[in-house]
């Protein structure tokens, strides 16, 4: 048993952390997200060219650093601490995941484009009616000669305003919630018939409603096999959740340490409020939540490559992290008092991100139900 990081992984963490310390403080981030385009392409360029981190989870023969989920975990945890909005999750984790696992003929080139910083991806999966059910797909793709014609509406596609391409789930057969009949397509965002309505999200990110109207794509747009895309989608989403749990750990640790620091400074009734036992115990409970979240994130990222254990491990982690996001986030605000309510303090921004992570790719209820099905359902 070994929970230590390799030398390369420690270097990766240091590289990311020191870049963010220099270029991604709270004021810079706040200035960037509050105006168009809502992100900093020059930061992305630095990720690709100066830091080389966009190749972290790809093999060396693809031009990557030869890492895997643990490397994504390291990058995402650091990103969580700085509330990074640039689309590593959509591009490297999701886009990279689909390309790696699908055996797509163009995968090597497309991954090369990720590593160079040229290809930016977003995942057009959720729909207005789907809630968190990955099989609930009403968007259609109909065979048209060798290619396909897509029609439908994808909801709250995170990072779509920055993306060059979209990974799209579409129904090629079956009924709206059937597990079978789902296929994945890679669509150029500039393709004819793709329209978007872009907007900011409450946590400072950007998203779009994406509409497909008779969008014609070639045979090579299909990622994986037709009609049997759901297992691939589930695998990539589980990897995404594992990475997002790591982001949450970064966010949660900032919420916790920020609160401990603040309560030491803030004096009421002639004493730092950190000296009050009721607040000490609250901060201890926050700390326990953070530690448990880190433990579950390690567990999830270790087991994400184990096909037999993956789904259960990921849902367990997402339940734990979802609860931690709420408890730690809300109490961080509470212990900051009125100051926690202000836009000018960073703490509220971490709270907002924690709140969005809580429900992203499935709420606590969703993953609790999935865990029950996978775990307890078998025994029954």
């Amino acid at each position, binding site marked *: 048993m070994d929970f230590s990081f390799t030398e390369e992984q420690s270097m990766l963490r240091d590289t990311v952390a020191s870049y963010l310390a220099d270029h991604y403080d709270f004021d810079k981030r706040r200035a960037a997200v509050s105006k168009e385009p809502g992100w900093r392409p020059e930061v992305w360029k630095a990720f690709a060219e100066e830091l080389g981190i966009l190749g972290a989870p790809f093999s060396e023969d693809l031009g990557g650093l030869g890492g895997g989920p643990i490397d994504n975990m390291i990058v995402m945890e650091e990103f969580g601490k700085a509330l990074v909005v640039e689309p590593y999750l959509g591009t490297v984790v999701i886009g990279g995941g689909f390309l790696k696992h699908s055996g797509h003929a163009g995968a090597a080139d497309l991954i090369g484009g990720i590593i160079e910083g040229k290809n930016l991806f977003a995942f057009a999966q959720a729909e207005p009616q789907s809630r968190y059910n990955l099989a609930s797909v009403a968007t259609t793709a109909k065979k048209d000669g060798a290619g396909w014609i897509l029609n439908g509406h994808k909801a709250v596609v*995170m990072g779509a305003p920055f993306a060059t391409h979209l990974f799209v789930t579409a129904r090629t057969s079956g009924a709206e919630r059937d597990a079978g009949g789902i296929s994945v397509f890679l669509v150029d965002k500039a393709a004819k018939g793709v329209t978007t309505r872009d907007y900011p999200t409450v946590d400072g990110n950007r998203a779009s409603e994406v509409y497909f109207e008779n969008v014609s794509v070639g045979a090579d747009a299909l990622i994986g096999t037709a009609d049997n895309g759901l297992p691939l989608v589930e695998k990539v989403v589980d990897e995404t959740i594992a990475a997002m749990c790591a982001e949450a750990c970064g966010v949660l640790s900032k919420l916790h340490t920020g609160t401990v620091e603040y309560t030491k400074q803030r004096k009421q009734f002639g004493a730092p409020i950190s000296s009050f036992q009721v607040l000490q115990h609250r901060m201890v409970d926050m700390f326990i939540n953070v530690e448990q979240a880190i433990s579950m994130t390690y567990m999830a990222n270790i087991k994400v490559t184990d096909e037999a254990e993956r789904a259960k491990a990921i849902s367990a982690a997402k339940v734990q992290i979802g609860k931690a996001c709420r408890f730690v986030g809300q109490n961080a605000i509470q212990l900051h008092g009125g100051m926690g309510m202000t836009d000018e303090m960073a703490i509220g921004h971490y709270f907002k991100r924690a709140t969005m992570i809580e429900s992203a790719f499935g709420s606590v209820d969703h993953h609790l139900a999935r865990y029950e099905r996978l775990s307890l359902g078998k025994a029954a």
Partner: protein
Amino acid sequence: MNLDFTPEENAFRDEVRAFIKDNYPARLRAAQDEGRALTKEEYLLWHKVLAKKGWLAPSWPVEHGGTGWTPTQKYIWSEETARADCLAVLPFGVSMLAPVLYTFGTEEQKKRFLPDIYNGEVWWCQGYSEPGAGSDLASLKCKAERMTADDGKEYYIVNGQKTWTTLGQHADWGFFLVRTDPDSKPQSGISFLLIDMKTPGISVRPIITLEGGHEVNDVFLDNVKVPVENRIFHENQGWTCAKALLAHERSGIAGVARSKRNLEKLRTIAGTERSDVGGSLIDEAFFKRKVAELEIDLTALEFTELRTLAGESSGKGPGPESSILKIKGTEIQQRLQELALEAVGHYGAPFLRDLQGNNLGIGPDYADGLAGEMFNGRKTSIYGGSNEIQRNIIAKAVLGL
């Protein structure tokens, strides 16, 4: 013990319901439905309708304009106004300052200030908290020194900073706690002053809250000259007024009727939203259970409040038990906000406020702003004496610990 309404009370309910239906301002209703920030004038539309009818301030003594309603009638009133989603009357003048005025003010002060509060002619704001005095309000430092001016009259010269002043950007006047004796114990050197916000030396600076709204403000006072006759009650005994005011602030804070209304809204949303498997979200086992638990919690709060009301009508003032109402009331409000945000799933994320009209069609209308309400709602367990402070009050004053 019984809960039945008398025929007279039922008739009163019908009267109230009809009055709201016929008189609630259409422009205000439209603004609320759009969910946009209200203008100063809009805030006062319903207030003025109620003032004209004589129903503005049910809890005031009759001689000052109160309705003389029984506790049951007041309960019916708050139920019906919440049920119809009427804008709550702004509390600063009507519920916070007025009780201090009619309890501690001179006849002249009552005559001068109460009618304008009643008629919505003067917008009041509260100057209590300071950057270093929140939960520990008695440690406030804003200084008022007494002097005789060239005109031969006596004034206080006020210097300091107040914060979290809700809707202070609209205020004509403010009621302030200031320190008039720096040498005595914290509670005993405080005075209660009414200050015209147009007095030279006052500046109001917005505080933007985490959801992006402008509701609260910093107020800076730089050599602000306040006539001595604007002081309520004795010099250095303003804490007595403040304590009475805080008790009133707490007793209204349970918000039972409004939470009932929001619970109905939650049911409507969850009845419209789909669950993972395609049915109504309200029929999904986990969600349904959470709504049921919340409804039971709300019932417990409602009956606790009714017991408190019954106690008040038999002559007991709102005691330290009202801290229960503040704690549970705010916890329930926050829980409702969390569940509403959970209910809308992905469409909790879009921040559409600044898109101006282009947000039509991005998610269901009811989803817009729910995340902001949840973020903003975290304030309720902080303000009016944080919920930790409320627990201290119960520990000390009720349990004698």
